[in-house]
């Protein structure tokens, strides 16, 4: 019979595990001679830059559009807008017709703000003779 330690259970050996000689070898530290290459952030930054530029452009575009409140109209009723083969309106022709519309509303024979039709000689008594 072995002499048992008072703290030990009956299934345990007397000799502590670490003293039994079957100790495990600690893993060797892997030494890497080449330094790890740091990943470049440049593509990411360029991407972000492009994104911000697009955002800035979008903000300007939306602001201007909102203020101008332009709605693309197809002036097809008067048949003046000529459509190209691909179905798009020639921008130059569009520009010409816009300017022509502006011209028609600038007819110099029409007085935009005529003088008010008021009686300039309105008075109670006839003026004194000078």
């Amino acid at each position, binding site marked *: 019979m072995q002499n048992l330690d008072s703290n030990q259970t009956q299934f345990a050996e007397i000799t502590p595990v670490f003293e039994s000689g079957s100790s495990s070898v600690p893993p060797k530290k892997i030494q890497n001679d080449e330094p790890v290459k740091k990943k470049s952030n440049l593509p990411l930054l360029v991407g972000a830059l492009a994104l911000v530029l697009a955002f800035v452009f979008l903000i300007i575009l939306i602001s201007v559009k909102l*203020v101008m409140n332009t709605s693309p109209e197809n002036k097809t009723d008067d048949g003046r807008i000529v459509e190209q083969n691909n179905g798009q309106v020639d921008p130059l022709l569009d520009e010409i017709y816009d300017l022509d519309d502006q011209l028609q509303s600038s007819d110099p024979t029409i007085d935009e703000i005529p003088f008010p039709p008021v009686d300039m000689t*309105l008075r109670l008594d006839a003026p004194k003779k000078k």
Partner: protein
Amino acid sequence: MKKTIVAFLFFLLMISPVLAQAQVDLISEKKSIIEEIAEVDRTYKGQLAEYRQAADQFNIAKGQFTKLNTLASLEVAVQDGRKALLLRDRVLLTYLKLIELKLLESDGINLEEKTIALDMTKDLQQDFQAHLDLTNNAIDRVAVNQVADDFEILAPKITSLSNYVSTLLRIGKLQTIYDHSISLVEKTNPNAAGAEPSLKQNEMIRAHTEVVNLMEKIYTNLRYGWDEIRVAREKEKPIDLAKSNASVFADLSQTMLFLAEIVSKR
């Protein structure tokens, strides 16, 4: 490098609302003048209707006084006369405000003439405001007759200014269209760099020359108009540019037709 790019990105983000705001401000300024014109125009029309009613009422009261010749009918005529004179001043004052805004809105007016016209309009507004205050305080027959006398000094001033501003607005509009059409003529130039080669190149060149000749004619007529305006203002004479303006208008219409034809044929 990284910090610089991040700083730039941050800067762009910060400045984007400012850039957008600058664009918006430019358009908003023009838009606000247009809105103000519409509002003043509504006021003007309302005041004109009120004046007409008051003037009719005054003429009836004046007729009654002439017929009856009583103190009661005189009092009615004086009060109705005062009201009509007051409303006439008010409507003319609003008219002056309206032409001031129209001048501000117009792009094509020669800057020197525009400044002079605006100053004249503002000065006359002050004169009319002073006259309106006098009319407001005129409560008896003598005072009402006095403000009517004073108005005779203002009347030729406002009719002359109206004629001057109206001429400026008309020629200004034509000038604006002429200025815009210059860029259109440039864009349709078959000799211009980047212009697409066409089989009808010679025909296009001849057509374009025709347009250029028309534009030169328009330019000459517009210059004549501006010179006439300056001379008339300096000599305090009425201006009549009906003939030259009609010619500019017809030539501009022709130019638009020619340009549309050139573009359609390309």
